[in-house]
């Protein structure tokens, strides 16, 4: 089956955020990030809003959680988070040593869903 016809006129508004125009490939809607430390006074207003969400938080937030909390478009937040990871303000949570290297995402999701019914 061939893909649906692309509508070339349907685009998202162009965004430039913190010097970045594209999100990192590994920064997706579901990507969880945690705050690192560092001065935020050089950041733009939206980036500061992101960092303020993490103030005092014991845990992370996914890109989608940030977009919902700040009422920003998820495409913008992907870019903001990407640049805040570049600058070291945000990072990916690091797996504990006992996190098996062969952690099988699909098997864990299946096991997790089955445990709920």
């Amino acid at each position, binding site marked *: 089956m061939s893909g*649906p016809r692309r509508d070339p*006129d*349907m685009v998202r508004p162009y965004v430039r955020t913190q010097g970045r125009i594209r999100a990192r490939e590994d920064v997706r809607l579901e990507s969880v990030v945690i705050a690192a430390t560092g001065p*935020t006074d050089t950041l733009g207003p939206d980036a500061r809003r992101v960092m*303020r969400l*993490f103030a005092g938080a014991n845990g992370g937030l996914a890109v*989608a959680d940030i*977009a919902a909390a700040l009422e920003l478009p998820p495409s913008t937040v992907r870019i903001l988070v990407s640049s805040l990871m570049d600058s070291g303000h945000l990072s990916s949570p690091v797996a504990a040593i006992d996190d098996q290297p062969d952690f099988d995402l*699909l098997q864990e*999701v299946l096991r997790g869903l089955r445990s709920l019914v």
Partner: protein
Amino acid sequence: MDCAPSSDRADRTDESGRAVTYVPATVTRSAKIVVAGGFGVGKTTLIGSVSEVRPLRMEEPITQASTGVDDLRGTPHKTTTTVAMDFGRIHMAGGRLALYLFGLPGQSRFQPLWEDLAEGALGCLVLADTRDLDASHDALGLLDGAGIPYAVAINTFPGAPEYPEAELREALALEPATPLTYLDARDRISSLHALITLTEYLTEHRPAALLESRR
């Protein structure tokens, strides 16, 4: 954070005063399943049924340049539409893994959004309503085009016609291996069973891209 006033520190609310539910510090991995389908087919209901946190909503503005024949000046108008996406979250694997569920509108004119937002999804659950099976075609076309594996679940609305499975498969143009199941999106267990059916299928038909680890 350096710039955050100390009064913010204990304050676990967003700028509109709603509580922010943080991902537990134990979570080091996350994954995404997309729930798609036509208008009013039960996407929001399903996400609300299974999510362990209050479902949230994001809004993405998209601009459509309309070049209608009635545009006498010949300059394209731009109309901005806002596409709303709901999502919820389930924690699993002893708190190490967060599974996010995103409701994406199935209309094919939202394809650019899909490319961005469905990228990296484990798979998709397509909801269908037998009163309007054609409404599922856009979502199915988007998924086929993007190579995202999916299962179909018929959401059973009162008074909706019932068809033999073979007829449903033909009407939806499903591959023989594609799972076709039934659910009541208002029911948590029923919704979870549909997600299990999808995930079982994914473990048997996993695309190579999924073998790469992902956070």
